[in-house]
């Protein structure tokens, strides 16, 4: 037996059990983290009597979709869903604006570029509590309170997204753009049919994040939506919050309607989200 192989070999065997412990700890932690989600979904399927029963049982004995139906028939969740999708769609307009700005910062030389980009970055430090009241006053002044556009506008453009677009788009070779210009392509066409297709990964990340942010947004819908016809899912759900003691099944059904689509989007696009944080230069 030679001494130089010794440090590696025996270690392998002693490491096996501790790897098992690592995985066990991780599984228990993940289960505890996900417990509220399982509890939400199972409770959404319980009749009311089971949801308020003590001791509680994890699985519904007589599963029912009664309360999911109730949300969309008796309550107005269908409308809230449409409103939420409209807010999300307006968010995608913002995505286009941010991609355009990122492209200009990355690929053009123009007077005031450094100053404007510094301005963009500095807005990242402004907390929402400071802008909340003034933004409300500004929206009231231009008559956009109680509109879906008013709900989407304050968060339409994020400095961080512009920054990410810029970071990614600097990697597009100048030669490609120059060649297109020499071929006589217009600037808008270059952007739409050359730059955007070459920015696939960053667009994927931003699309997922924009969807999640718009779908989940709560503060602005709460402040801006005055009457029920403008409510989004999150505001409609907040109304259910006021009946905590009365009907947990209905509340969990509402929460599930809000959360399950996000879970699906997340599971499908998970790797892009992780990639997004790697792209941001976090190594």
């Amino acid at each position, binding site marked *: 037996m030679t001494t130089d192989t010794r440090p590696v070999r025996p270690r392998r065997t002693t490491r096996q059990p501790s790897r098992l412990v690592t995985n066990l700890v991780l599984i228990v932690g993940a289960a505890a983290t996900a417990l509220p989600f399982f509890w939400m979904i199972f409770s959404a399927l319980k009749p009311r009597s089971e949801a308020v029963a003590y001791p509680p049982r994890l699985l519904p004995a007589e599963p029912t979709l009664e309360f999911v139906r109730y949300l969309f028939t008796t309550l107005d969740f269908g409308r809230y869903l449409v409103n939420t999708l409209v807010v999300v769609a307006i968010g995608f307009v913002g995505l286009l604006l941010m991609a355009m700005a990122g492209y200009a910062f990355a690929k053009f030389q123009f007077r005031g570029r450094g100053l404007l980009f510094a301005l963009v970055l500095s807005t990242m430090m402004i907390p929402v509590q400071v802008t909340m009241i003034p933004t409300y006053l500004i929206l009231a002044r231009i008559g956009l309170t109680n509109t879906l556009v008013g709900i989407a506008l304050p968060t339409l453009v994020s400095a961080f997204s512009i920054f990410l677009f810029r970071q990614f788009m600097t990697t597009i070779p100048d030669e490609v753009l120059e060649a297109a210009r020499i071929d006589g392509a217009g600037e808008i066409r270059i952007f739409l049919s050359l730059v955007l297709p070459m920015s696939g990964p960053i667009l994927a990340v931003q699309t997922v994040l924009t969807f999640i942010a718009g779908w989940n947004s709560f503060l602005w819908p709460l402040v801006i939506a005055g009457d029920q016809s403008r409510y989004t899912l999150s505001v409609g759900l907040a109304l259910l919050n006021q009946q*905590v003691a009365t009907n947990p099944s209905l509340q969990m059904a509402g929460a599930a309607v809000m959360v399950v689509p996000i879970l699906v989007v997340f599971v499908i696009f998970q790797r892009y989200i992780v990639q997004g944080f790697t792209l941001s230069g976090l190594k």
Partner: protein
Amino acid sequence: MTVLAPPRLQAPPVTRPSRRHRGGWVPYAFVAPAMVVLVAFAVLPILVAGVVSTTDMDISGLADPSSVSFVGLENYRRLVADPQFWNALRTTGAFTVVGVPVIVVASLAVALLLHRSGGRLASTLRAFYFLPAITAIVAVALVWGYLYNSQFGLLNYLLSLVGLGPVPWLSDPTWARFSVGLVAVWRATGLNIIIFLAALQGIPHEYDEAAQLDGATELQRTRRITVPLLRFAIFFVTVTTVISWLQFFDEPYVLTQGGPNDATTSISLYIYEQGFRYNQFGFASAGSLVLFVIIAVVTVVQLRLRGSDDH
């Protein structure tokens, strides 16, 4: 706490400006729409907040601007004299002091374990840990409110199985702080775990292998090699976590509305209540600017400390 957009972490790659295209008016046209929105909803509000904070603007002033009058620094004087403001400040401070280490240590620990485990299982579990970060706060409030419920809540039932409880999760002031803090920690760790994992992937294997050949145990390697190499990520997560605790709002707003007895009223919640429940826009703007200054000072101090640590 909301998912924070991490600020820029590295200097942007240096590109040769000479190769950039001079497009005349074109770049301005591309930048303008986004800049207009950004100026209208980020830059202009700061200026408006400054002006409004020196007035007695309220809901009637909104309808009829001529009824608003200039009051100088009166709002700031009232703020300093308000015991509720100081209470909210102390509460926020307590949450920050306890919450920051908990979040940083918990997410670092999970990230190290996930990294060590590697493979398919780890990437599946990673998704579980990340889920709370992308869940709507209103849904979080409903589900946790149900879990915490004193009559038929799951948590008290689980505690009773091991002979503990019942715990007054949201009705006792001290427990209420713990309960909203727990939800905040649950929501905040996912994003930080992803950040630490990205950083861990950037560490070359050679360091670890060299130390292993020298006979260092795994715990020693983690403490003396991995964690020090994560210094920048730890610093970044600490700074963003401090900021998000200083802005702590969502969890107490939806779970306790600041109660019981203002035990969970953070400074952000206090400002929101003054502004949108009592419609004192001028007074609330003064409070929000004070919060802004506190956040800016705390962040700059941390950046300075970090700077001196490097030399």
